[in-house]
């Protein structure tokens, strides 16, 4: 399953790529929201893992834009900040999960991605598409 990861910190991107490629995901990296939008226009990523605070455009705005292009996309947020208001805002805007950096356990993130992946597969099956 294709996974798009967006973060302005390249070392975070590399770290996550290593981890999720090992888990069997096909990983594409974007260092910013604008680059991510171009990638999503080109190829409908159903799984997106994005940072929340990035220059030029926030993760929430990016998520809205991605969902406008591909309503089936499952977006998971990650952020160095955790407070109630941002969690509520992200979930309200349609994020399927929310993780705080640094990750206590990357396996929990894998689990969330696998759940999202299964959801996408079920939707596709329900719509009669080829999963």
């Amino acid at each position, binding site marked *: 399953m294709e996974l798009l990861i967006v973060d302005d910190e390249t070392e975070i991107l590399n770290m996550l790529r290593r981890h999720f490629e090992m888990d069997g995901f096909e990983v594409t990296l974007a260092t910013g929201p604008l680059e991510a939008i171009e990638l999503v226009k080109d190829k409908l990523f159903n799984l997106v893992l994005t940072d929340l605070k990035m220059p030029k455009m926030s993760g929430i705005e990016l998520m809205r834009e991605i969902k406008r292009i591909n309503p089936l996309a499952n977006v998971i947020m990650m952020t160095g900040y955790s407070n109630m208001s941002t969690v509520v805002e992200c979930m309200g805007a349609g994020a399927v999960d929310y993780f705080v950096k640094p*990750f206590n356990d990357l396996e929990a993130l894998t689990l969330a991605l696998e759940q999202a992946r299964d959801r996408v597969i079920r939707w596709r099956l329900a719509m009669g598409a080829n999963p």
Partner: protein
Amino acid sequence: MTVADDGRQGFELFGKDTFDLVITDIWMPNMDGFELLRSIKKINPEADIVIITGFADVESSIKALRLGASNYLLKPLNLEELSFSVDSIHKKQMMVQRLAEQEARLIQVGKMADLGLVAAGVAHEINNPNAFIRGNAQTLQKFWKVIDPFLNEAMEAGIDAPSGLDFIIREMPPLINSLLEGTNRIKKIVEATASFTRYNEAFYFQPVDINQCVKDAVHCLNASETGLQLELEPELKPVSGIRADMVEVITELLKNSNEATRNRDCPDIRIRTSQPNPDIIKVEIEDNGTGIKAEHENRIFTPFFSTDPKIGHPGLGLTKVFALVRGFGGDVYFKSSEGKGAIFTVKLPVYHKEGQTDGIADR
């Protein structure tokens, strides 16, 4: 009260002790009142001096006042006038002292706010590198789980292994754990520092039962046996804030008292709650511990300051207390006598339905 027979003796005595007030005649042998006034003011310009004289002349009264006398009284003395004068000087001195204390507190609060911002900024910058170190360490652990059994099998099969490979195989898991432990410690420091930036969440403030918070904190620390006494005023109005953070405030203050009384034979920690007026709830945590050294008094709320630096205890506990309480619109301060104990007072605003409460810090 100390008495001197003439100006010179008066001046000598003044140099040996601290006096709040000097009452002096003008015409005296050895050193007259003006000379005494001038000499004392040289040592302590703030000293209060009342001049008493039998000669009522305008010139000397003006001279006395110009030299900084607080008052100028005539003989025969009207005792009522004298005690009124002493009284008002005393009041003035109290006010000056209070102002000085307030000023010191304001400077301290300003410093804290700056330090808080710096600390939060540094914490934020550290968070990202820490996130990828931690993530990579976890992935390394995952990779190692694949390599480890393969290498072991190969070793058992008798491959021509480079020297020291068995050592590497043995040391790899603790090495990775050490990386994870290090990042975990950094993470905790960053999290504690992040509480400085929680100021603007008044929107989420809820009515909080402070007595319950005290009980929860005590329960959390298993502190019931350490000579702890709760004097909780029943049916207090709820305070405004975030419950979990309120428990944390009490917990940190309790930890502080526990630490201070650690070496006492009979540790005595008391937590009192009360409502001194309709808008404020007061929590006092008093201990008979080591107290706070005078030179530490201005620093105990400062981030990363600790009187007993220990690994894994970065000295952020009281800073967190300060930041959270100020964030709730409250105030926290302490009184301490070194060697005898300390009392921390937290004042919190009572919750009002509209949610917003005025800060009580300046009251």
